[in-house]
């Protein structure tokens, strides 16, 4: 599309209300009751002048620009705050209104710089447009009176400037911060002429305030007061392309606003079904990595990992790689080769990598980063419900009465969904948080959890069993639902199990450290609903009982009848943009696309017929098993697309040993990541801005990713995989990513109705999309579970082997923060670094005092697996005995400390529980210095020497 601003109807849409018909400027219009006159006019193409109104915040009625005349009504009411009535007759343009509006506009312009031609918002400014609309030709008051033109510019935020000289104090930014983002960082300070927008206290600038840089204020600003620095530097965009964000699993859609091949800004798309026009600091602003100087755009190879890299042509790189892989296969057999698909890449690219492994390498040794995040979700929900995915769409939260968050930190990990959640909480929904840390959702402006259960890390199953105990023994279970929808015998077994007195909150308090009374209150609240929904994250899955916890969550939802309608459900908050899709596409070693087991001959035969090659009927190796087998000498080659397992996977020393033992490691990525230190081949990757395909978000929504610029390396990632496949003798001949999706649809029943053409025409669709659900499935298990009867599974709490003791008396848990993303490969290469330059160790004041530590001190963090050093942050956000850090920075390598312990069912690592000791340190450890030196050596490029 060319560049047009997004339509703005002035006030929010009203849903689910009876229709009302009125007449506006002689035209009849029918809209839902409760709609504003302003919006009704906009629906029929009328454009009532306005300044303080915008359709993502409630009407405010302050600018006096949108006045109208209504038959039978005195005065000139503001159309933004006047609801429609049946039979109402409205005039939006009369001599009286013209005069009033022009007079108001004169006042605005008398205190506004007249630098339109050099203003960054020139020709993209609502104040300018409105002045034109009202026919302003003169300002009778002149410009010499008291004004704000000398107000100083705030350039502290790395992505946008605040120029109060251009502010008309319409409060749109303040209201967007409150209503859309829910942070309440902005306010109007002073009154009358002195009124001004302020970020926090008068002494704060934007960077120093509570502002989280979501960009909602910038999007809402009608002038150049809040404007992107990129627009100032580059100019107004000349076209816009809708695409999908490549950060977290919320799957926000954006308008990539371009000049030529240059991205000017990413603006959240109002019609985005996941984000509904909102964004976070990562998706909105942190895209500069795409053209960062560190980006590698030419292929490189080397004989040994001790050699410097040698830049080569694509042809030579592919020939070298194919020859190595073929030689290894000939000598060691197909099961010596494998691949890792990327949750950052598209469905189409992921599908091709697993196809290459299964159909080209000839093994099922394919895995994906879901191994280290949500593999227990796949296991647990498939077992209980029959589908390895969440049950709801994000809109569902608008119908929720009680929210249970366990092991998730939505404001940091899934910030756009967190904003929608906070909005619902401000409307009166109740909140239970189960988390060892006092995350922001526990208490933030206008949000206060009814219960925060700060459990001991590793006791999720005990907590959920105790909640189930309360619900069953107090007669709060929805037995009618269970009898109709679930296996009644299995329910009774489970109910007997949880009713055992040893599972009471009072007994388990010794294990969980959660007061029994709080737990009982939380359980009663959850059962009371009537619509109770569970949202969870990696604090559930990354445990030795990750799968058991998912099973326990599903049990709780079924026992209380909270499945199968809007407002309820089990909602895994998926970490990466396409981790759901990567799992759907057959990235696990035991199953083909659509979660069908590899041993099923019927399913295999479908793929064998399509691909023209036999498929190994045996499950392949998972990532940790690949590394074990490499150390053993039976696994020799690994193709890794878009993952950095050295930094992201547990027990870094073991990962390094596994990689070093292989004969051919191929890293296909944007940057020379940490894993590439052990690679023989580097294939440059393409960013999400440079490719066409689809991502599937946490609500199973398949959405288009559209290429907005040419790949800097010359190829989209699927094309690189195809080059390698062809060099290995496979006759692939895709000419467009849509053909890959067509193949996926042919082979995967839940994707049968999905094609690029349909997604282009209809927008995102939630799988399953097939004959039974032609329009997709916003809510699953509506009339019955996919597996038939819902299955209750008894989940015994089994303490982790990772125990504290005299040597390692503290428990470490890890997570991520708002401004950084996973291993930081992208966000560290953006201005987001200003908010998080290094990983910090959060430690409780008591534990810090015992060790003589204060904030900012270097500390040694040691476990039985390894040790690292980082700086301390003393805070009571963590409980005594618990420490916390992030894993965004390779200098810290937090995973040097984490262990090989993993979930019993899926081998998902136990990142959330590591016994550690913390002590004072003088600075980076010898290992960190050695590692940094080795990384520097490994990144030498011959051509550059």
């Amino acid at each position, binding site marked *: 599309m060319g560049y047009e601003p997004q339509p703005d109807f002035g006030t929010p849409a009203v849903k689910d209300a009876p229709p009302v018909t009125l007449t506006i400027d002689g035209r009849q219009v029918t809209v839902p009751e409760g709609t504003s006159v302003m919006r009704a006019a906009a629906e029929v193409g009328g454009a009532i002048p306005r300044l303080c109104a915008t359709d993502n915040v409630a009407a405010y009625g302050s600018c006096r620009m949108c006045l109208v005349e209504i038959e039978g009504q005195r005065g000139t009411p503001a159309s933004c705050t006047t609801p429609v009535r049946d039979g109402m007759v409205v005039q939006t343009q009369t001599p009286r209104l013209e005069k009033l509006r022009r007079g108001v506009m004169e006042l605005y312009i008398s205190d506004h710089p007249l630098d339109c031609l050099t203003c960054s918002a020139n020709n993209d400014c609502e104040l300018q447009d409105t002045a034109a609309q009202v026919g302003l030709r003169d300002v009778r008051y002149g410009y010499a009176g008291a004004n704000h033109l000398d107000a100083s510019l705030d350039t502290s935020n790395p992505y946008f400037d605040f120029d109060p000289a251009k502010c008309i104090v319409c409060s749109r930014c303040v209201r967007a911060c409150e209503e859309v983002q829910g942070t309440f960082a902005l306010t109007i300070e002073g009154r009358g002429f002195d009124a001004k927008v302020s970020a926090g206290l008068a002494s704060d600038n934007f960077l120093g305030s509570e502002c989280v840089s979501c960009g909602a204020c910038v999007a809402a600003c009608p002038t150049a007061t809040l404007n992107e620095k990129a627009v100032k530097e580059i100019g107004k965009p000349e076209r816009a392309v809708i695409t999908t964000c490549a950060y977290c699993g919320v799957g926000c859609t954006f308008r990539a606003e371009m000049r030529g091949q240059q991205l000017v800004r990413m603006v959240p798309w109002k019609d985005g079904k996941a984000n509904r026009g909102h964004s976070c600091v990562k998706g909105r602003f942190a895209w500069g990595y795409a053209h960062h100087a560190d980006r590698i755009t030419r292929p490189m190879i080397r004989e040994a990992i001790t050699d410097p890299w040698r830049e080569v042509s694509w042809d030579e790189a592919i020939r070298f790689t194919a020859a190595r892989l073929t030689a290894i296969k000939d000598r060691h057999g197909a*099961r010596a080769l494998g691949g890792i698909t990327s949750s950052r890449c598209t469905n189409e690219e992921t599908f091709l990598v697993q196809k290459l492994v299964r159909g080209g390498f000839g093994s099922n*040794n394919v895995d994906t980063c879901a191994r280290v995040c949500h593999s227990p979700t796949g296991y647990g929900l*498939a*077992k209980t419900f*029959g589908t390895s995915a969440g049950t709801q769409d994000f809109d569902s939260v608008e119908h929720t009465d009680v929210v249970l968050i366990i092991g998730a930190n939505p404001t940091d990990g899934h910030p756009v969904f967190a904003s929608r959640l906070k909005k619902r909480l401000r409307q009166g929904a109740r909140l239970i948080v189960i988390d060892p840390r006092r995350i922001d959702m526990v208490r933030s402006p206008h949000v206060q959890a009814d219960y925060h259960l700060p459990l001991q890390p590793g006791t999720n199953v005990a907590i959920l069993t105790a909640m189930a105990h309360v619900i069953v023994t107090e007669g709060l279970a929805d037995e009618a639902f269970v009898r109709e929808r679930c296996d009644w015998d299995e329910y009774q077994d489970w109910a007997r*199990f949880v009713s055992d007195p040893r599972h009471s909150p009072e007994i388990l308090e010794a294990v969980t450290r959660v007061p029994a009374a709080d737990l009982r209150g939380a359980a009663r609240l959850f059962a009371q609903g009537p619509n109770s929904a569970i949202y969870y994250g990696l604090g559930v899955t990354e445990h*030795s*009982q990750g*799968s*058991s916890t998912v099973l326990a969550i599903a049990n709780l939802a079924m026992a209380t009848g909270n499945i199968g309608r809007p407002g309820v459900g089990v909602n895994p908050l998926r970490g990466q943009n396409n981790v759901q899709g990567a799992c759907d596409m057959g990235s696990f*070693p*035991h199953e083909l696309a659509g979660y069908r*087991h*590899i*041993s*099923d001959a019927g399913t295999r035969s479908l793929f064998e017929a399509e691909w023209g090659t036999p498929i190994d*009927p*045996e*499950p*392949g*190796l*998972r990532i940790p*098993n690949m590394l*074990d*087998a490499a*150390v*053993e000498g*039976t696994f020799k080659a690994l193709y890794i697309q878009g993952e950095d397992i050295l930094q992201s996977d547990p027990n870094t020393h073991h990962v390094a040993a596994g990689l070093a033992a292989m004969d051919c490691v191929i890293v296909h990525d944007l940057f020379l990541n940490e894993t590439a230190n052990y690679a023989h081949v580097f294939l440059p990757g393409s960013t999400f801005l440079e490719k066409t395909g689809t991502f599937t978000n946490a609500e199973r929504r398949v959405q288009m990713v559209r290429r907005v610029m040419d790949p800097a390396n010359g190829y989209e990632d699927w094309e690189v995989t195809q080059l390698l496949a062809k060099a290995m003798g496979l006759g692939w001949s895709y000419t467009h990513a849509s053909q890959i999706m067509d193949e996926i649809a042919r082979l995967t029943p839940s994707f049968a109705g999905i094609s690029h053409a349909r997604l282009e025409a209809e927008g995102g669709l939630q799988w399953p999309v097939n004959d039974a659900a032609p329009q997709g499935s916003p809510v699953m298990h509506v009339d019955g579970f996919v*597996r038939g009867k819902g299955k209750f599974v*008894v*989940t*015994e709490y*089994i303490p982790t*082997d990772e125990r504290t003791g005299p040597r390692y008396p503290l428990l470490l848990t890890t997570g991520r923060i708002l401004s950084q993303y996973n291993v930081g490969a992208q966000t560290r290469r953006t201005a987001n670094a200003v908010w998080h330059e290094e990983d910090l160790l959060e430690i409780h004041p008591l534990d810090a005092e015992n060790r003589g530590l204060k904030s900012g001190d270097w500390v040694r963090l040691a476990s039985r697996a390894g040790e690292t050093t980082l700086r301390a942050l003393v805070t009571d956000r963590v409980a005594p005995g618990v420490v916390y850090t992030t894993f965004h920075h390779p200098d810290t390598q937090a995973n040097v400390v984490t262990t*090989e312990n*993993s979930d*019993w*069912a*899926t*081998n998902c690592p136990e990142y959330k529980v590591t016994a550690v000791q913390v002590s004072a340190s003088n600075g980076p450890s010898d290992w960190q210095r050695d590692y940094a030196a080795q990384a520097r050596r490994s990144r030498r490029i011959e051509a550059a020497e």
Partner: protein
Amino acid sequence: MSGGTTANLVRMANQIAANLAAHGADAAAAETAEHIARYWDPRMRAALREVDPAQLSAIARAAVARLDPAGAASPPSD
């Protein structure tokens, strides 16, 4: 098979068995065997069959005895 890898397999098998034990000894042994057949690569299953049974819990030991020596994975049951 190195000691480290063998120890890892033993730990994994015992962990699976422990988590399924609440279903009763016989059912747990059958489910443990099925789990290993469904999710473990053949070389891992083969290595598990070679470990000293004394290292395994009773349920894990019973599960290993049920593993198909031919190495074929059991068909999916759900």
